[in-house]
């Protein structure tokens, strides 16, 4: 049963063993972290992530969460702190956005290469220049090659469930896990969430090193040692899909690596990820009512990439991206690499508002065969 504490004493009400509350996705993530009981949290504030760690700092100050909150002078140090704490066997958490993720990028490789479990929330935000605090996915796709598991939630409920799953999966496969949510439309939008209280197992990890141990990690490698380590990480990251799928039902039943929305009989499939998929679904419903057989494959994970589900797509495929590499979107490139001939649209960069009406027009153009590679400007 829930042990109601702090904010939740006043914010929620019980619904059996669950409580219904009105929370932003930032707040929902903080509540999931409370349940996971990390021992060390380190973070540097950045919009729109800051409310996550502010709420956690409040929990610690009130004595509801027994964790060390390490205030640091930069995101590079935040990741270094949780790297060190994870090495010693602590359950760890951090959160960041945009420039913060770029600044900690080097340490993201170190923690992944060291095969240490860790969980980080990434509130996806545009990277300058030009300056912009609003949402797109250009920051989180930076993590693609670093060796992290990367999830993208669609709403506050999924953000809550996925954060809990992140601790479990990360510690099961010894790979750090990033939970992505869209800036503002999720991070600052309060909505109804049902909180529940799963029991996570005790922290486990492949190895740990305590301060008194005479043991050096990550020394200079010779010959194939580094290549072998990199191969093992890539292979284990690939196989983490099995753990994600297997435990999906224990963490909210969201579909595993993907959510298939009205795809069964679809002649047209749209591929997207993130919070704006909610608007896309409403647009798909409108087109379905007009008789168009269209559906959505929502990628819940960017890594491991849901290759199987993408390869199974039939009919015409449109990938709508919120990040780009060259003129192509990042998901567009990923889907093409699965051997799927897909059309690709880049949209919503820097928080440009793409809602139900815009998606309706985009999808209508798609089914009318009037869309190819392009930017929705």
């Amino acid at each position, binding site marked *: 049963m829930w042990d109601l504490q702090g904010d939740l004493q*006043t*914010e*929620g*009400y019980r619904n059996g063993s669950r409580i*219904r*509350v*009105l929370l932003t996705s930032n707040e929902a993530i903080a509540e999931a972290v409370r349940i996971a009981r990390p021992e060390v949290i380190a973070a540097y504030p950045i919009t729109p992530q800051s409310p996550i760690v502010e709420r956690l700092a409040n929990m610690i100050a009130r004595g509801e969460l027994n964790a060390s909150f390490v205030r640091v002078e930069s995101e590079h140090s935040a990741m270094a702190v949780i790297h060190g704490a994870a090495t010693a066997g602590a359950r760890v958490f951090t959160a960041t956005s945009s420039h913060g993720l770029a600044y900690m990028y080097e340490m993201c490789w170190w923690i992944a290469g060291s095969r240490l479990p860790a969980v980080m929330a990434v509130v996806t935000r545009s990277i300058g220049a030009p300056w912009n*605090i*609003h949402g797109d996915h250009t920051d989180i796709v930076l993590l693609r090659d670093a060796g992290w598991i990367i999830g993208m939630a669609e*709403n506050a409920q999924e953000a809550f469930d996925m954060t809990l799953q992140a601790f479990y999966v990360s510690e099961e496969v010894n790979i750090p896990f990033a939970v992505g949510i*869209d*800036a*503002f*439309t*999720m991070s*600052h*939008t*309060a*909505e*109804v969430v049902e909180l529940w209280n799963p029991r996570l197992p005790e922290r486990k990890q492949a190895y740990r090193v305590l301060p008194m141990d005479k043991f050096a990690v990550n020394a200079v490698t010779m010959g194939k040692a580094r290549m072998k380590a990199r191969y093992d990480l890539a292979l284990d990251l690939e196989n983490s899909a099995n753990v994600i799928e297997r435990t999906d039902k224990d963490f909210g039943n969201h579909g595993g690596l993907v959510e298939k929305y009205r795809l069964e009989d679809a002649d047209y499939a749209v591929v997207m990820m993130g*919070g*704006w998929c*909610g*608007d896309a*679904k*409403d647009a798909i419903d409108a087109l379905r009512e007009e008789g168009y057989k269209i559906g959505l494959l929502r990628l819940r994970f960017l890594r491991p990439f849901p290759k199987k589900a993408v390869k199974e797509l039939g009919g015409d495929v449109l990938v709508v991206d919120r990040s780009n590499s060259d003129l192509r979107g990042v998901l567009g490139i990923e889907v093409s690499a699965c051997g799927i001939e897909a059309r690709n649209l880049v949209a919503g960069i820097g*928080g440009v*508002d*793409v*809602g*139900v*009406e*815009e998606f309706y027009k985009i999808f209508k153009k798609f089914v009318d065969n009037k869309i190819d590679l392009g930017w929705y400007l």
Partner: protein
Amino acid sequence: MLLELTIYCRGGQGGVTSAKLVATAAMLKGLYAQAIPQFGPERRGATVNAYLRISDTPIRRRSSIKNPYGIVVFDRKIALNSTAKLGIINSPDPIKIAEKTYYLDATRIAEKNSLVYAGWTVLSAPMSGAIAKALDIEFHYLKEAIRMELGEKAEKSIESAREAYEVVLWT
């Protein structure tokens, strides 16, 4: 049923809080709701927007509200050109801002209950009372929502919301 409302106010008047209070009241009634602040900088005194969605089914869309069913105006000096069905305005006399407009002197109610902080009259409580009334959300849900949000400091706000709920008129 999906109701979308845009709230026009000045930074510091409690527009975002009123959206959260009504959204919580709707949740307590068993509905789904979203309370959305204006994204980006919010400045004291500047015109800011907040948004509110209420539905009997889960709300999936989260883009901005372009054609609201209802508009809520905290300061009658904020000029508006609306085609909304429902309007709620802080004004002692009737002003028509929508097909059906609710009006009340929320400033007077808030000041009577000393809801003044740092020189600002905070209107979230009386305006949430008027919104709840206009949306047919029973007062006891709003009362509980205010308790959840404000805890022990809720009494003055509950009184303001109750008065607003009772006195609001429509044209």
